[in-house]
């Protein structure tokens, strides 16, 4: 295998690992963020309903 072939094989392997790591981190952390975002938007919407301007 030439230098370029080895480089691209390693790059492909690294890319799969990084892709998977990002997915796991985002899936776990994102669930909590969704809860917070919806709470904030609900609060904002109810404030606007109370004080229409």
């Amino acid at each position: 295998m030439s230098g370029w072939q080895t480089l691209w094989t390693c790059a492909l392997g690294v890319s799969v690992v990084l892709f998977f790591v990002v997915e796991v981190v985002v899936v776990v952390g994102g669930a909590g963020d969704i809860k917070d975002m919806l709470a904030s938007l609900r609060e904002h919407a109810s404030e606007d309903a109370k004080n229409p301007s």
Partner: protein
Amino acid sequence: MNFIWIDWVTVITFLVLTTGVALATRRLISDYDSFLLAGRTLKLYLAMATMGATELGLVTLMYFSQQGYKSGFAAFSIGVIALIGFMFVGRTGFIIKGLRDLEVRTIAEFFGRRYNRSTQVIAAIITFAAGLMNMGLFLVLGAKFLLYMVGFPPDMLPYLMVGLLLLVLGYTVVGGMVSVVLTDYAQFVILFTSVVFTTYFAITHVGYDTVIDTVQREYGAGGFDPFISDDLGWLFIIWLIFGIPFAGMWPPALSRALSTVDSDTSKKLYSFVGLSFLGRALMPMMWGICALTYFAGVDAIPLPMQDGAPDTAAAMPAYLSQILPAGVRGLMVAAALAAMMSTFDSYLLCWSSILVNDIVLPLRPEMTDREKIRLTRLAVVACGIFVLSWGYLYKPPETFFRFMAITGTMYSASVLLTTAAGLYWKKANTVGTLTSLVVAGTLPLTTIFLGDSDILPLEYRWMVEDKVVGIATFISSLVCMVVASLLTQKSHPPKVLAPREGVTT
């Protein structure tokens, strides 16, 4: 037809769930900020999900796989350069930190504050034009993928394009950014999982050693070394390197950075999600390379043809339709639909917001939130119809990725380069910015409209090659910005932003 019942059940379940979210979140839209920026409440992980899903579209899978098919492993250099760009932006906060601190909704809004209203409108028009042209191929590529994966007859292509457009328009118009963000999260999960699975199936079906041998036989050393590749080459790599400081700043991605809770979150967003951008490029490229290997073999089905030549964009979906097991094929199509919807909806919303915020609003500042939301929804529909028409009429030169790259340069070298100057160079003034915007906003049009025509004599064709025009656009934009600003400092003194307005004092 390649689909069986389990594939259809997977796809239909996914569609019902995602469109249901758009309807459920409608009552949370109370004003323009909550429609367009989800109320600026995006925290890091959700911002990563929505940016990851937005930037990994079906069109991305298609143009990267086509590039892999045409350039072999040498195409991987594109992914490596993208990774370097994201790491640079994430580490330094280049542009994104300044814009987030200013709390602007769109990048053109910055031009209104730093320069004047007409500069804002011109920047917005260039961004809008480049963006719409860039998005023009989304529908046709998306429909082509479905056509070959599901196994529809070729004359179904226009109907698929219309169907996909109606699907995306429906829930973007109803829900705005909140539904886009929520569906992006679900789409991120299904999309990222399917991409990894599909890469496994694509490689194991033909065998990695066979892939290497095929690329060596078809493309020689240029199939691995991007500098000697027939399709890429030195100039192409230099062109991409010019774009490194502006990585991931295409307006829909930038809107995610502007939707985060603060500028530190924006920087972390680019650093973390940038890690996935290597795989975003390399894995679909690998599918294209595996498709090349498959169609070079003796047991393959015939490669689809278009206008008498092999349709290289269709190679990947045609290959996957033959090798993915039932069920996984349905999951992949659901993921592809997720990819298309998450990208398409964000892009539609983004270009429409630019039209409303930066072109219409400066002329009609008295508009209410309700009127702005209504106009944005109308603009979403109008942009969708344009994309449908462009997909029918325009035939891009060379590969789809290269068309994306030249429309990206039209935006980066004009709007982003002048934004950077406005943020970090005190002498940047309106004349320099306008000159740079106009030059960099028009030069790439020579490639887009003349690149494949016979108007120019053969000996001058090199002048409209995308890589030549791309490099020339970056250099001439920078020169125009610096020279015109310095020559007009007295007649047009640079505007000074107060510290609370921005970083320039």
